[in-house]
């Protein structure tokens, strides 16, 4: 089994239901307040793909035991205000994700981004990369350029 990078199918439906809000322009939610999102790391042995609907716990997630990894991942500080360019709407987190001073001996190869404001912690996307381990160091995930064609999340 393996992880597969994908926009989560449930997220597509969530968009139609106004479940997520990446900016303060979210009258369906709390006016003036963006939802909170988190990024969690998952092991190479996990099976995340487009079918995942939410963050449901620690199954397949990097363990917090002896690793200094924070269970449920790290908070995403904020997202760029969603922009529409040439028919493509897009947004990207405003900063990298950092997991400092971690020791993870079991290979990990993906990051699940999910909505932490919603009680059901609905999934947004699964990002994959080459499997890694790490010793007493920092895992940094840098974001792509926030533009049409490169932004982390795009609706074409």
């Amino acid at each position, binding site marked *: 089994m393996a992880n597969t990078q994908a926009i989560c199918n449930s997220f597509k439906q969530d968009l139609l239901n106004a479940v997520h809000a990446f900016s303060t322009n979210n009258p369906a939610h709390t006016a003036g307040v963006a939802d909170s999102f988190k990024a969690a790391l998952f092991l190479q042995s996990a099976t995340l793909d487009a079918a995942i609907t939410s963050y449901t716990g620690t199954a397949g997630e990097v363990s917090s035991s002896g690793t200094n990894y924070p269970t449920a991942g790290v908070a995403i500080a904020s997202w760029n205000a969603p922009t529409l360019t040439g028919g493509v709407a897009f947004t990207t987190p405003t900063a990298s994700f950092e997991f400092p001073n971690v020791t993870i001996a079991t290979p990990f190869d993906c990051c699940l981004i999910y909505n932490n404001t919603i009680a059901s912690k609905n999934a947004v996307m699964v*990002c994959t990369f080459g499997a890694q381990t790490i010793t007493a160091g920092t895992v940094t995930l840098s974001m792509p350029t926030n533009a049409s064609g490169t932004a982390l999340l795009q609706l074409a």
Partner: protein
Amino acid sequence: MIHTKYGDMEESLLERKEIISEDENAKTIRTEYWFSGEEVRSDVHIIIKKGLDVKQIMGDL
């Protein structure tokens, strides 16, 4: 000084290796620090190359 699994160590005592790998989704820069044949620290910088898109599909009426 640099923090390692054995606490802070003088960086000049460590052998530094940089390993770059890339696939269609991300470029990864792995920096390893070795002391006496043992990896005592590593940092992983994953650069997501491009995001994912949701394509709109219009159904028939």
